[in-house]
Structures are given as structure tokens and as C-alpha cells.
């Protein structure tokens, strides 16, 4: 494992001349753009971390002339707020990244799926979009973007659920395969990318892939935006190179009494103090879409776990058995243990259930409920029981 320490970076919010980047991208071929992404090693910034270059390559290879680029702005993971900040401050770069992706995969149309909780941003975004459309039209870029709003459903951040929602349906994840690159929104080949991924892509075109890989590690190239909250004197948005340890992160952001960091939100992992030094923040360690929550010793990890389980019990789409019923069982199970109505050994059964959910649920949500559950129960068992 490499450890490059904590490095602050200014990429996402860097002031640039968008038009200049767009002119540069427009002069590139689809293959060249995709190659830049592959060279940069950029992985999706939403959390799942699929290589962006590959996603674009697969979508570009599809024969169907009707393709879409979808920007996933359904940022719902507890503890993430970076996409809202990005859209608020540099939406021109989001739009630019979408147009570049469009050029790469051969799509003329893009959708931004914006979570309903961020609707207040819409008037401003519409103005920005208008001038963006004018700008790329001047360059001769044939691409347009449409905003579609969510209405309060965490699961719509799952890519196929998001497509269903755009299509006017309940946001229920689809069976895979087919994958979005073959059959995405309106059953057309689709590249769906996170807000930050698209901005990063634009910046890679601007500065070149080499500039990007100076940051990060072999498995986690570049930098990303972290949403820092919880027990910290400095909550907010921070752009940092990947590859630091949780200890280094805590040294910078902790309040001196940090006992655990939840990396990656409710669907992520809980790292306890004793593992801070050995845990790398990145795909080789604990991956994150940016959510970093710090808990100090005054917090009950039972409350944290209960809050997350309550969240999943409500936000599961409900279609598949392991997720719909599993979440309810985990929630009711820990309540019973806490109240002493179930034996503490019952936690072992619940951990087995969490393991089943990880391999049996239909989508990433159900599969990741077990992450928080197992890491919190595993590291703070006494707090759950007593």
C-alpha cells in the first residue's frame, strides 16, 4: 500500500475558461478522449468506482445511434453534499463534462437527474444551462442537456433505478445484465456518471491525464472531493488526493477525541480508532463517494447504527426480499438485543443475515447495507449490546 499523506488539491473548483476546454475537447476524436480517461485511471466518484474510460469505451462501441449520457446528481448518501456544492459553484463544468462524455460515446443528448432536495438550485442551473447551450452551439458542438428532478428517494441514485425514475416509474433497480452501457435510459446505450466524475473528466481533458495521476495511488488515481461532517471543528467540502490513511484524515479534521470514522456514508464502512493508521482511504482500502463522518467518544454507536438501519428500512425500494425484509430484521433485531429481549448471541445471526444481503440482494443498496452493519457491530459490539 502506498501512503502519500494528506494533500489538498484544487481541481474541481479551479477557475477555468470552459469554452477553451470545450474547443480542445471538440477537436479531439472519441477515441482520444476515451484514451485520456483510461490513461488517467479515473474511477467513478459516486462510490462504486467503475473506471470511467471503460464505461465510455463500452458505450461508444454500441451500434445503436441513439445514446444518452446521464449525470447522476441524486446525491443521497448520508454525509455527502459535494455534488450540491459542485452544481452550485461550477455547474458549467458539469455541463462541460457531459458534453465531452457525449462526444466520447456518440450521444447528442444528456440528462441531469437532480435530487428533489436540491430543487432550490434549479432556477440558477437553468440560467447557467442556457448560456452553456449557447456556448457549445457557437463551437459547433451538437449536444443538449435536460434536467429531470427526483422527488425524494435515495434508491434513485442506483443507476438503473434512476433510469426507471426518468422514465416516469417507481425507482426500482433493474435486473443486470443488461448493463446501462447496452441498455440504459429508455433502453438505449447510456453512460451514467456522477457529477464529480464528469467535472474531473473535463479537468483531465484540460490538464492532461499525466497531471491527474501525480495524485493518488495506483488503485486510486487523482484527487476527489470529500464531504466532512460529524464531530469535527471544520465541517465542509475538501478536495484531497486519494491514498491517505484514516489517521492522517483524522489528524486534520478530528476534534482530538475521534473514536470512529464512517467512510462512504450509511452504505460504507465504519473504521474504529484502532484501525485508523492501517486503513487507506481509496479503492484499496475503504472506498468512498466522499462521505466522511467523524464520531467522538460522546456518541453511541448503537444510535449511529440504528439511524442507518432506520434509513435503509425506509429507503429500500422494497422489491427484493433480502433488502426489504432483511433491513427490517436487522433493525428490529438490534433493538431487541439492546432492550435485552434477545440474547447478545443473536447478533451473530444478524451478521449472517447481513452476509446474505451482501450476496443475495438485487442491487448495490441491498448489497451494501451489510457494510455499515458488520463494521459497526464488529467493532463496537459492547455499545450495541449494553
Amino acid at each position: 500500500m502506498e501512503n502519500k499523506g494528506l494533500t489538498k488539491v484544487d481541481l474541481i473548483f479551479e477557475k477555468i475558461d470552459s469554452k477553451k476546454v470545450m474547443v480542445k475537447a471538440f477537436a479531439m476524436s472519441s477515441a482520444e478522449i476515451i484514451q485520456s480517461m483510461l490513461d488517467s485511471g479515473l474511477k467513478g466518484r459516486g462510490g462504486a468506482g467503475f473506471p470511467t474510460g471503460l464505461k465510455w469505451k463500452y458505450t461508444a462501441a454500441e451500434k445503436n445511434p441513439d445514446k444518452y449520457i446521464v449525470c447522476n446528481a441524486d446525491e443521497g448518501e448520508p454525509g455527502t453534499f459535494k455534488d450540491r456544492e459542485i452544481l452550485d459553484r461550477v455547474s458549467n463544468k458539469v455541463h462541460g463534462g457531459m458534453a465531452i462524455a457525449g462526444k466520447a460515446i456518440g450521444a447528442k443528448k444528456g440528462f441531469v437527474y437532480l435530487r428533489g432536495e436540491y430543487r432550490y438550485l434549479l432556477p440558477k442551473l437553468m440560467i447557467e444551462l442556457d448560456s452553456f447551450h449557447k456556448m457549445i452551439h457557437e463551437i459547433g458542438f451538437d449536444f443538449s442537456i435536460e434536467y429531470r428532478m427526483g422527488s425524494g428517494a435515495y434508491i434513485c441514485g442506483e443507476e438503473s433505478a434512476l433510469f426507471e425514475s426518468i422514465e416516469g416509474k417507481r425507482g426500482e433497480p433493474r435486473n443486470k445484465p443488461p448493463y446501462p452501457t447496452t441498455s440504459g435510459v429508455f433502453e438505449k446505450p447510456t453512460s451514467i456518471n456522477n457529477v464529480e466524475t464528469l467535472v474531473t473528466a473535463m479537468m483531465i481533458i484540460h490538464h492532461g491525464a499525466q497531471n491527474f495521476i501525480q495524485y493518488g495511488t495506483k488503485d486510486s488515481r487523482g484527487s476527489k472531493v470529500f464531504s466532512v461532517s460529524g464531530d469535527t471543528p471544520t465541517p465542509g467540502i475538501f478536495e484531497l488526493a486519494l491514498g491517505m490513511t484514516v489517521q492522517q484524515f483524522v489528524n486534520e479534521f478530528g476534534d482530538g477525541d475521534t473514536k470512529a470514522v464512517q467512510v462512504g456514508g450509511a452504505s460504507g464502512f465504519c473504521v474504529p480508532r484502532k484501525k485508523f493508521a492501517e486503513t487507506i482511504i481509496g479503492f484499496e482500502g475503504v472506498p468512498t463517494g466522499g462521505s466522511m463522518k467523524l464520531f467522538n467518544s460522546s456518541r453511541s454507536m448503537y444510535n449511529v447504527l440504528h439511524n442507518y438501519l432506520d434509513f435503509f428500512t425506509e429507503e429500500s425500494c422494497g422489491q427484493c426480499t433480502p433488502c426489504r425484509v432483511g433491513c427490517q430484521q436487522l433493525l428490529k433485531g438490534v433493538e431487541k438485543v439492546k432492550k435485552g429481549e434477545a440474547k447478545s448471541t443473536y447478533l451473530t445471526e444478524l451478521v449472517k443475515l447481513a452476509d446474505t444481503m451482501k450476496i443475495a440482494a438485487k442491487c448495490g443498496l441491498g448489497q451494501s447495507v451489510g457494510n455499515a452493519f458488520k463494521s459497526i457491530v464488529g467493532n463496537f459490539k459492547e455499545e450495541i449490546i449494553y
Partner: protein
Amino acid sequence: MYQIGNLVKELSDKHGHARESLMPILQAIVQKHNYLTDEAMVEVARELDISAAEVYGTASFYTFLDTQMKGKYVIRVCKTITCSMKGKGDIIQTLEEILKIKVGETTTDRQFSLIETNCIGWCHKAPAILINEMPYTELTPEKVNEIIKDYMHK
């Protein structure tokens, strides 16, 4: 009934009659009327040529597409972990006292509804609420008092 029919017609002419127009149409109705009445859902079903049960099924999936009566101002208090750690309880208590309603209820003058919601993306400025679509953050009971007083005088 007459009015909602006109609105639905207007909206479906604007957004189209395909299934993909369902969300934008429902969202626009909620923006205007705070929630979806049964009449509105039946009208939407008719315009889009889908069943009313499907309209209801879709609407009820989304927290913001209320199918129960809601007031003019819907206050959504974030209950997810950071807000919960940073004083959500006090905010709720303050709101319940000012509005004289409990969570889940609407004031008798149908001005305010108070509900809890999952993470709204303001964890660094917790506790946070939404009033309709506007976020209010880093709240204290005093701030909440002021904000609600402003809304009462709107």
C-alpha cells in the same frame, strides 16, 4: 375538480402524454397544490392513459409526492445521523411548540405541515430543514422561531 382538470391538461400539454412525463407533471401539481389529491391523480391517469393505481403506486414511492393532505408550507426536518446528533430533537420540539402540531400533522389553518425526512445533504451545517424547497441550515431554536414567524407573516 374543474380547476385541477385544467391544470393537469395544461401540464400534460407542456410535458407530453408519454409515461416519462408522469414525474414532471406530479411534481408540478405538488409545487402548486402541496400534495396530490385523488382527483388530480385520476386526471393524470386519464391524460397519460395509464391506470390510476399506477399513478398512485408511482407517487407513493417518492417522499416528496405526497398523497395525503399537506399544508401550504411543508417543513421537512432531516433526521439522519448528523442532524440527529446536532440537535434535531430541539428543532422538532421548537417547531411543535410554535405550530402546536406533532410530527406528521398539519396545522388546522392548513398553513404548515411538519414531517421528518432522510438526509437532505447539509450534514456540514446540521441541523437542517427544508421548507418546501428552501433549505435552512445551522439551526437553533431561536433561528427556527424567526424563520417560522416570517412564514406566518407571508
